[in-house]
């Protein structure tokens, strides 16, 4: 998962609309990308 994909599908991630596998991939991206953590926190 890149930042581009994470941000593109952030709404679906937050709404719990991703598949379990995609959700796990997004969690893994968050664990290694402080920029996307910051983006998600400020998006909400």
């Amino acid at each position, binding site marked *: 998962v890149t*930042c*581009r994909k994470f*941000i593109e599908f952030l709404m679906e991630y937050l709404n719990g609309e991703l598949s379990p596998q995609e959700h796990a991939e997004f969690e893994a991206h968050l664990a290694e990308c402080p920029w996307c953590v910051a983006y998600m926190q*400020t998006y909400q």
Partner: protein
Amino acid sequence: MEEMTARSPAEEAPDEAVLLDGLRAQDPLAFEQLVRLHCTRLLVVARNVLRNEEDAREAIQDAFLSAFKGIGAFDGVARLSTWLHRITLNAALMKLRSRQRHAEQPIDPLLPGFLDDGHQADPAAPWQESAAQLLERRETCDLVRRCIDRLPEAYRTVLLLRDIEELDTEETARLLEVSVGVVKTRLRRARQALRTLLDPHFRGGIS
């Protein structure tokens, strides 16, 4: 409709079945009560959509007229207030569409940019306070409202209907006469653009 002010709590909650019977019987007093009960709240809704006092007042007049004419079609499943809210949104959106439109601003400059490798081009940084903390302050709410007003119209209306009027995706699509997919895409971009507009204010606190 300036003379129609908010009622006391007891008057705000009349027996809806009785009121509905009056409306269906075309009782003028029932219509008057309906207007008195709801016009203040509905004017706020119309103002949010149209951002113009005169247009908003015309829209709620159109809405009440539609309600009076269409009361026979009201099935009583939803609450009257919900039904009127949807009619008002529809009237306001029709007026918005009928206005002389300026060329729509592109939203692309407000969307996040990415490098070729997929990383954020302008990495996000934390805000000094959480959004919940920020929204407790009046000046923050005013700033958010001003930033929403800066969004291109097609995106502003979707954000307004979904996040402020709290309609679901399907109903928003129906009112705007677009597909559910279009609503989802516009909402995603509208929220991204709003975040972009708010970011410089909140990275360093309220400015």
